[in-house]
């Protein structure tokens, strides 16, 4: 194919006029919102202060100390929050919407989660994507933990909603619901996996798989074939993970890891090679696919670019991220959001 044809074909693409107008309008709207950035440090300071102070048992079942602290840290901001104090309880866990405020095109909501029966709510508690905010208009939102009180097993969260059309957030009823949360999350980094990289098969059996994702500069789903599990013993020392295969495929080292029950947890790992001099070799690509037995187990296959001779100087290492506990329930609070 002549080079000129490629250039001509790509240059025939024009951004549609309507798209150009949409992007310009959204960017102008974002630019108009820029003054709001000045309030963010105050929020960050407040969140940090709450995180520190809530190490003491100030939150308990009451919310007044939260207001006291707000007034102390940022009185103007505290005044703009309206008390809500509506709660719902299920499975021994209480969710309470403490306060909320509207500011321009966004709304901020403080809510707490308290385990009344045990320690399922802890400092690592994560609502991940299991919460829903229902509003009469389209919003984008995110939720972050703002503090934790170990004495009462209470975690404080800040939910921020932004009107997708960039309009001022109207006062209206909002429903916040939660169906599960993760806690007792743990990070185990730099874990050595005792696999002998000098004795890896150079002709392993492979198979075509139905990929669900992947990453890395060399990620190429069209040419990828996964190893067929070939290790009789699990060498991975971290519970919930199994080292299932090793093999050289087209001159690249493939390492396959099985994550148990991924559908029921958020466990994940990152494998890499550590050299005898401490250097780290990251995989050039990784591929994810479900186990075929429908168990919810997931395979991750990492591809490293090095020679078999070089591999003898490396050991397999992993960072593991475990979400130990998953608590389910049905918590829902509907409350008025007032401007």
């Amino acid at each position, binding site marked *: 194919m002549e080079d000129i044809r490629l250039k001509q074909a790509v240059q*025939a*693409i024009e*951004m549609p006029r309507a798209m*150009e107008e949409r992007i*310009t309008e959204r*960017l*102008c709207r974002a630019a108009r919102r820029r003054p709001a950035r000045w309030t963010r440090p105050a929020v960050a300071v407040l969140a940090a202060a709450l995180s520190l102070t809530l190490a003491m048992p100030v939150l308990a079942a009451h919310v007044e100390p939260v207001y006291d602290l707000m007034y102390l840290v940022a009185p103007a901001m505290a005044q703009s929050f309206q008390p809500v104090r509506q709660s719902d309880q299920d499975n021994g866990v209480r969710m309470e919407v403490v306060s909320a405020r509207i500011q321009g095109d966004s709304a901020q909501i403080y809510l707490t989660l308290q385990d009344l029966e045990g320690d399922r709510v802890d400092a690592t508690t994560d609502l991940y994507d299991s919460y829903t905010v229902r509003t009469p208009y389209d919003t984008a939102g995110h939720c972050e933990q703002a503090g934790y009180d170990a004495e009462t097993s209470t975690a404080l969260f800040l939910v921020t909603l932004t009107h997708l059309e960039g309009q001022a957030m109207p006062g209206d009823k909002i429903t916040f619901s939660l169906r599960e949360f993760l806690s007792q999350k743990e990070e185990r980094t730099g874990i050595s996996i005792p696999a002998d990289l000098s004795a890896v098969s150079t002709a392993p059996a492979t198979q075509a798989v139905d990929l669900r994702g992947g990453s890395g*500069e060399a990620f190429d789903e069209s040419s990828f074939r996964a190893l067929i599990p070939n290790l009789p013993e699990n060498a991975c020392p971290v519970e919930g993970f199994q080292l299932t295969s090793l093999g050289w495929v087209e001159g690249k080292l493939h390492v396959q890891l099985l994550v148990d029950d991924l559908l029921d947890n958020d466990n994940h790992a990152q494998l890499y090679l550590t050299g005898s001099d401490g250097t780290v070799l990251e995989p050039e690509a990784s591929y994810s696919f479900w186990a075929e037995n429908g168990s919810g187990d997931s395979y991750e296959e990492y591809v490293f670019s090095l020679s078999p001779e070089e591999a003898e100087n490396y050991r397999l290492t992993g960072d593991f991220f475990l979400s130990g506990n998953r608590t389910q329930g049905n918590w829902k609070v509907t409350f008025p959001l007032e401007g």
Partner: protein
Amino acid sequence: MEPSSVRPADEIESIVHTYGTTLFRLCLVMLGSESDAEDAVQDTILTYLQKAPRFTDTGHEKAWLITVAANRCRDMRRRWARHPQLPLETLERCGPDREDCGVLEALMQVPPRFRVVLILYYVEEYPMEEIARIIGRSVSAVKMRLQKGRRLLEEIYRKEYL
């Protein structure tokens, strides 16, 4: 050129108008989705507005935007379980005729790491050294990708369109 951190509307309009199509071409070919390309272009220009980098000239500015857009496309592709195929009618709506669409469809079947080099070299006409800087690889890696990318493109095009 010293962009200020807060841009008036007419300046934003000018940036989108000046670079929108260049970025859209790259993002559409890299992502194979009109809506994802729109998001990537918007994210790129938003990053430009937020970071307000200083540029020595317009060439520097354009290369910076292309670098950010290429990185954005790479990040978006990493998160996908499946890579979309751009329907022919969507391609035609963006300008190319039937013959051009054949070339573009073949191009979009070339793996992304070769595709981006082909676009930067043959369409944007950047030298190897600049492409190496934009994609964060060595010049020899760019030469190899260009060579292999061109061969793959020709093979795909001959097989499916000739």
